[in-house]
């Protein structure tokens, strides 16, 4: 916390090179990232980058963002220790960072509020976004309502069905939800469709990208706006436990909640960073979203990164019970963290995630998002591995209200 009582300082948005892993001028994290997009979009990306560069060093912007984070999103979010849950992890200490308690119910709101403020600075009146679980769509619709922006959300038809509650929320908030019926009808195709809209309407429209994937500068901007999660958690861990955690666990779809909690700890070499991707029905089944674990380097959605693709570069459709992790790409910074060895990535099956989902509900009275349940399942494994002396910080990226339909089916409720 800064001395004036705000929660955010200019240094809290990274971009100051403090962690040695800011992308270069072309948005490259090592060999990853960059821009692979139609030339028509380059000026818009340049404009977003320039406006962000100015905003992040502008006290007025930081004040506005800070104000929204505190008075609207409900930051700082608390830490919650979960001892009854941790009994199932060999007795290691498990502490949750409660992004589920933010307004709209997931970490997505942090990035959205930051980019919504950028949209105003860009002088644009319309925002579009892709959404998988619907959390990014809901957060975007929310910010659009708050700031008086027109809002269109692209969502795969399959996801519209499994996250029907969030579709209704977005509509209630005044957004137009466009179901995408081509390809796998999930997040990947929603992103394609959002790009098509953007290239057509770029004069009036900001593409409020929801994760740390996509062309430069999105991976950097979305990370910086999500960074507050780790900045707070680091301070709170020191207050609560007197030391840094031994390991951090976060789920990885595109990678925004994971980078959000990892980033402030990257310089702390004693802290292990573990990302959990959706293993769906298991690696062997071929039905999974193990982009970092089992994918290969390629280009998807404007960025060089790990991709699920066949030997000719065609994207392979992903599978996960959680819409938010059902994506065959991943943010380039995670690709870079993986190859550098600083972070490790694992898979968690649908079944293991659902077991952790119900375990947290029954032992602690917290119903997590199915996405976040992948991190919880990972923490159970980590705990058993690291032993009872270990302290594990888990990013509880969202709450499970949106997942009741899936849970009712899965558990026969």
């Amino acid at each position: 916390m800064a001395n004036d009582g705000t929660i955010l300082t200019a240094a809290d948005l990274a971009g100051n090179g403090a962690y040695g892993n800011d992308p270069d001028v072309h948005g490259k994290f090592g060999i990853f990232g960059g821009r692979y997009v139609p030339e028509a979009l380059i000026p818009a990306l340049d404009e977003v980058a320039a406006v962000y560069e100015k905003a992040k060093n502008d006290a007025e912007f930081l004040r506005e963002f800070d104000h929204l984070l505190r008075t609207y999103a409900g930051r700082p979010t608390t830490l919650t220790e979960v001892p009854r849950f941790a009994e199932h992890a060999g007795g290691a200490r498990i502490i949750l960072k409660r992004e589920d308690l933010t307004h709209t119910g997931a970490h997505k709101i942090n990035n959205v509020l930051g980019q919504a403020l950028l949209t105003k600075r860009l002088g644009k009146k319309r925002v579009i976004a892709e959404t998988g679980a619907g959390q990014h769509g809901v957060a975007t619709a929310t910010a659009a309502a708050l700031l008086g922006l027109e809002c269109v959300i692209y969502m795969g038809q399959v996801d519209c069905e499994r996250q029907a509650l969030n579709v209704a929320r977005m509509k209630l908030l005044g957004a137009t939800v466009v179901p995408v019926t081509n390809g796998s009808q999930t997040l990947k195709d929603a992103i394609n469709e959002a790009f098509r809209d953007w290239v057509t309407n770029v004069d009036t429209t900001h593409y409020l990208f929801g994760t740390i994937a996509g062309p430069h500068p999105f991976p950097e901007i979305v990370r910086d706006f999500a960074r507050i999660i780790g900045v707070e958690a680091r301070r709170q861990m020191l207050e609560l436990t007197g030391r840094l955690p031994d390991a951090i666990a976060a789920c990885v779809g595109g990678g925004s909640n994971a980078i959000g909690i990892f980033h402030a700890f990257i310089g702390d070499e004693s802290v292990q960073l573990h990302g959990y991707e959706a293993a769906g029905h298991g690696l062997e089944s071929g039905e999974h979203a193990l982009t970092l674990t089992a994918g290969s380097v390629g280009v998807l959605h404007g960025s060089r990164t790990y991709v699920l693709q066949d030997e000719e570069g065609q994207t392979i459709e992903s599978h996960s019970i959680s819409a938010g992790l059902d994506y065959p790409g991943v943010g380039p910074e995670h690709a870079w963290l993986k190859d550098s060895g600083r972070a490790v990535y694992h898979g968690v099956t649908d079944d293991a995630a659902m077991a952790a989902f119900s375990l947290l509900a029954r032992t602690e009275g917290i119903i997590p998002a199915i996405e976040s349940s992948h991190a919880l399942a990972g923490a159970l494994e980590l705990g058993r591995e690291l032993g009872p002396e270990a302290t594990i910080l888990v990013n509880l990226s969202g709450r499970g209200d949106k997942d009741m339909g899936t849970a009712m089916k899965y558990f026969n409720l």
Partner: protein
Amino acid sequence: MTTLQTVFATAKAENRAALVGYLPAGFPSKEGAVTAAAALVEAGCDVIEIGLPYSDPLMDGPTIQDAVHRSLVNGTRIADVLRTVEGVAATGAATLVMTYWNPIDRYGAERFARDLAGAGGVGTITPDLTPEESEPWRAASAAAGIDTVFLVAPSSTEARIKAVVDCCTGFVYAASLMGVTGARETVNVAAEDLVKRTRAHTALPVCVGLGVGTGKQAAEVAGYADGVIVGSAFIRRMLDAPDEAAGRESIGVLAREMAAGVRSRA
């Protein structure tokens, strides 16, 4: 093998624009793509772009998305694309491949350039490969002796136009509008201005694509550009035709109309 240089020199000598037709490989079938392209050549297309079908065509509108999807469902592979190029090049048309970057990246830049040249292809158009990321592909293409065509857009600044044309050989592709592929009622007025701005930075031919669908539009574009690129309008007709033969006939009629258009510069 007809080179792009020959095509544009001939067109210039005849005081007309070149006509460029686009069709994805494997659509309506692997063989059907070759015969359809041959029909375009016979009707007067000087250059054929063979699309390499990709799972995530984020620059394409519904018509090309539909055709590409069918092609992938038909099981089209890169080997089929190269065979298609071979078949089309045999008609005497200068034949290019238009593709998103990832399939080449995965196949291997040098290998793709070599295999494309081996099939008689004269170059590629890569709409999502920016100048910043293009160096490996330009090097591989130069080594294989094929051209590299990149796109400028109405939103391009002077600096971007310069950066893009400096990477181009063969010709420069000017996207007429801000948007995805697909025929439009009118060709955007921004196209003429973009061609003018592009010429200030290069002596290469400048071809206009996106949204051209009629002979009249072709004539209009031929009034200021070196080439007129037509894709979705042909594909739409093939999608709407009851069978491949009817589709071929229908695109032949349209291509003849376009060929007349590029010869009657409006």
